[in-house]
Structures are given as structure tokens and as C-alpha cells.
């Protein structure tokens, strides 16, 4: 018994000694657990829009039709949409940007978002998209097509309804909902909250290991990445970008902007379909077969508000699969999008 006790004590002492000898490493230091943002790493491509440094890049001829890719979240990033950059080889100018506070774009404290109320969504999502378009649009007759996925599709719809004369085409891939109640219902349906599920403890058990204050972006973004990168319900299996992947494997969630957007949504109860009845150009509405939270009936309900539309069901992929699975993109989605653009 005494011998066992000594062995146990020795093990603890050795462990403490080894840990105390190691170099201190902080979980909130940029670059340790999550990649640095554009304001922390000047080698990343960026543009300045409305007082924020945004991670952004564009491919293809500068004066050709703009296709602006708008990522999901709020708080996601554009990396999973990079398959779309093959459109540049077909003669289009393909634009990617991470929204303010998301991806590798500059972070802002929660207080900044709260200070934008009322009308915060208008101020920091619509105005930002407008700024991005203005940055890349080099002549007045240059056409602009929005390609949004998930939250990006919601934002694109809202923008087209708000500025119908500024947009020449609209491609929306699985907007969860356009009216606030539909948004909340979809989000609830797309996540599992079974008390006994692995998904639940994967999300909640983490909190005893890592905790972060309201504006400790590195910690909050890291935790957000850990709990939201795959989702069996919506059929997401992780991006397959093939050779379209960027030279740097860096993806980062924007936890604060995500929380802020939902708080703003609860306050404002936005209707992102407002004004879309004035957008008479045909809309390409895409949804997937593998998203259990997005059945045919839900797609029909959400698509109802678009006055002129073509509905396309992406077979064999999930919520993001229409853009983040390289094989599906190459064989099905890219030809479909090119065909849609030619039809305008």
C-alpha cells in the first residue's frame, strides 16, 4: 500500500514537473488554435470596406460579369465556396469575401454590434455587401450576380429586394428561411438536441475545458469551430475542394458576429424577403436532397416569395454540398449556374 502511494505521488510530481518545464502557450494568442485575421497577418489578401479590413480575393477578368459569392453563418467564411472560383476560367470575375467579424476578416467587439441598433443588419450586412460590390465593379455596365449559400442566400435575397436595380442575377442555395420565424424554425430543425446524443455532449462538455470572455475572439471562435464544423442532419460532411483549395488551409468561425446577428434578429425580427417581389429577374433556387431539415415542402415554402424562379434540387449532396463538393460542382452545379447566367 505504501509502495503504491509512493508510485502515485511520484507520477503526479513528475507530471507537474514536466508541465512546469514546458513553455507557456496561451489559448487566446492569435495563430495558436485559430488562424490570424487579415489585420494580424498582412500576407493575407484583403480589402477595406466601411471601416473594416475584410479577407477577400477575386479571380478572372476584372471587367467581366461579377459573381459575388456570399458565405453562410452568420460567422462562417468563404473557404468552403472556393470551388466556385473555376467560374473564373469561364470568363467571369468571381469575388469572395469574409463578412466583418467572420472568417479571416477583422474582428469587432460585441459592443460595436450592439451600438448599430436599431437597423443593425442593414448597417453591417447590406452596406458591407454594397461596399464589396463597389470595390470590385470597375465600370457602370458591368453585370453583378449574387451567389449566396445558407445565410449568404438569405443576405443575397434581402439585398436583391432592397436594391433590385443593382443586381442582374440571383442564385440562392438553401436559404434556411427568409422571415425571422422561418429562420428560427429551420435552425432548430437542423440541429439535434436529443439529451442522450453525442452531438449534444460534443457541444456542451467542452465548456469545462475552455472558457472565454465576451470579446476573446480567439477562444470563442475556436470553440465555435469545434462544435459546428459538421452536421449529419443537414448532410454536411466537410468540404472537398480538390485543387481549388487556397494555398493556406485556414478557416475560422466568427462567434461574436454570429451571436450578435441572432441578438439583432431577435430584436428586429427581420423579413429578408421584403422587396423581393420587385426583383423580376429569374432566380436560381437550389436545395439539396441530403438535408433532412430541408424537405421538398420547405423548399417550396421558402421559394414561394420569388416571383420568377427556377428551382433545382441538388441530388446526393447536403446543405453546402452544391458548392463544397468538387465532383458535384464540376459535373452538375457549375454547368447549371452557367446555363442559368446564359438564360438571363
Amino acid at each position: 500500500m505504501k509502495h503504491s502511494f509512493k508510485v502515485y505521488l511520484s507520477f503526479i510530481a513528475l507530471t507537474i514537473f514536466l508541465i512546469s518545464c514546458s513553455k507557456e502557450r496561451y489559448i487566446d494568442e492569435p495563430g495558436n488554435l485559430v488562424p490570424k485575421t487579415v489585420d494580424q497577418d498582412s500576407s493575407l489578401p484583403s480589402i477595406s470596406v466601411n471601416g473594416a479590413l475584410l479577407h477577400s480575393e477575386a479571380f478572372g477578368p476584372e471587367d467581366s460579369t461579377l459573381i459575388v459569392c456570399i458565405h453562410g453563418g452568420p460567422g462562417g467564411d468563404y473557404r468552403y465556396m472556393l470551388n466556385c472560383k473555376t467560374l473564373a476560367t469561364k470568363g467571369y470575375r468571381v469575388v469572395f469575401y469574409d463578412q466583418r467579424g467572420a472568417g479571416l476578416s477583422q474582428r469587432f467587439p460585441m459592443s460595436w454590434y450592439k451600438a448599430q441598433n436599431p437597423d443593425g443588419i442593414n448597417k453591417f450586412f447590406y452596406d458591407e455587401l454594397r461596399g464589396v460590390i463597389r470595390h470590385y465593379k470597375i465600370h457602370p455596365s458591368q453585370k453583378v450576380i449574387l451567389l449566396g449559400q445558407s445565410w449568404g442566400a438569405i443576405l443575397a435575397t434581402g439585398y436583391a429586394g432592397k436594391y433590385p436595380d443593382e443586381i442582374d442575377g440571383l442564385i440562392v442555395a438553401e436559404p434556411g428561411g427568409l422571415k425571422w420565424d422561418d429562420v428560427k424554425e429551420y435552425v432548430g430543425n437542423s440541429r439535434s438536441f436529443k439529451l442522450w446524443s453525442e452531438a449534444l455532449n460534443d457541444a456542451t462538455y467542452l465548456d469545462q475545458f475552455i472558457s472565454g470572455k465576451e470579446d476573446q475572439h480567439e477562444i470563442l471562435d475556436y470553440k465555435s469551430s469545434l462544435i459546428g464544423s459538421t452536421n449529419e442532419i443537414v448532410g454536411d460532411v466537410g468540404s472537398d475542394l480538390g485543387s481549388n483549395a487556397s494555398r493556406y488551409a485556414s478557416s475560422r468561425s466568427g462567434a461574436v458576429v454570429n451571436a450578435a446577428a441572432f441578438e439583432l434578429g431577435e430584436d428586429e425580427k427581420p423579413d429578408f424577403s421584403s422587396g423581393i417581389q420587385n426583383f423580376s429577374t429569374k432566380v436560381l433556387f437550389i436545395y439539396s436532397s441530403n438535408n433532412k431539415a430541408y424537405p421538398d415542402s420547405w423548399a417550396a415554402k421558402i421559394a414561394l416569395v420569388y416571383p420568377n424562379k427556377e428551382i433545382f434540387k441538388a441530388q446526393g449532396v447536403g446543405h453546402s454540398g452544391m458548392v463544397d463538393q468538387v465532383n458535384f460542382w464540376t459535373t452538375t452545379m457549375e454547368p447549371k449556374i452557367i446555363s442559368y447566367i446564359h438564360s438571363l
Partner: protein
Amino acid sequence: MKAITLKSILIISLSFFQNKMYAQFINWENISNKHKHLLHVNIAGEYGITAGLGYYHLIPVKRFPFWIGGECSIPFGNRLVDDFKVKIGTQIRIVAFNHFQFSARLQGLSRRYQNQLVRLFNFGCDFAGTLGYYRHHWFLGVEAGFDKAIVTNFKHSDWYKRNIYANVKDGWYEPATGGNFYYGLHTGYSMKKVDFTIRAARVLQQDFKSQPLFPFYGQAGVNFRF
């Protein structure tokens, strides 16, 4: 709604059902040299839904009796052994006045978390104080404590490096990576060799403002004394 809306939804959903379990489940009025062993089983809400098993041995020092032992718990899920927590430590009665008693608990702990992206292994400590009113057949008390994640080892999967961040730095992270305060109530009904216990408390992160996704804890347990 891609990816990270989960936290937002969990915050909304779990605001209505939140809990956690800790180890102070002893009816100090019933300790006896005849029953120096205590086996405890429980089901709890503690950063998830968990099942726990513990054993404590009584050291009957006259004015300051204390229990030493340990406990382990695992959350439910498809993969039972990827997450767990083990605690080893002591619970000691410090003050007794009539039926009021004040006790303290100090435990070292290690815990593990794993999902598709990362494996975390952590050493920490958990200490708490409890003031309670103890009778032979029942007890009621309040407690407050702090659970600190002192040092944590991160080991990321190839999936994380391929899809999220290629240059992530694995290894031991210190100083402390997290900590949560908790405060709440515990109560129980005692029979000759068995206690039925219930606990409930609120959990706050160490900045006293933020809260975990599961910001409460609850526990139903049974003690067997022998």
C-alpha cells in the same frame, strides 16, 4: 446558418434546462464508524447528461471527520469512452453547531474530451464549501465552488488540419484554459444505509458574466453506506 448557429440555438434551448453535478452528497449527521465505506451512483446534467460512480472511505478524526475517495463520470452519447472525468480528493467537516455543519471539498481532477476535430486532456481542481442543516433522515444545504481547468493538452485531428487550420499548435496550454463558478442547493432523504440525494445549481464562467451552454447542473443520486 451554416456551421456555427449551434451555439446560438443551444443558448436559447438550454436556458430552459440546465444543470451539473458535484460530489458533496454526504449526510454528515449519519456518519458512523460502522459504515466507513460509501458508494455513490448518480445520473446528472453536467455539461451534458452524465452517469457517475464514486467511492469514499471515512477517516473518523474526532472533530474533523473526512472522507477520501474518488469518482468518475461519463456523458451519454454514441461513443461512451471518448469523454470522461475522474476526480480524487477529500471532503472534510470543518464546523458543527447543533445540526448545522460546514464542510469543504477539495479534489484534483482529470478529464478528456474528443470529437472529430480534437482530443483534449486536462488537469484541474475543484473546490467548494457547503453549509447545511443535517438530520438523521434528511438534510438541506447550500454550496458554492469553483472548477478550474489548470492545464490542457490539445491534439488536433488530421481533419482539423486539413479543413480548418493547417498550422494549429498542438501540445500543453497553460496558464489555465478555463474555469467555472457554481452555486446552488442540495438535499436528501436518508434511511439506515441508503441516502437519496438531489442537487441543483447555477454555473457561471470565471468572468462572472458569460455562461456555459449548460449553465445549470442537476443531479439525482443514491449513496450506499457499508
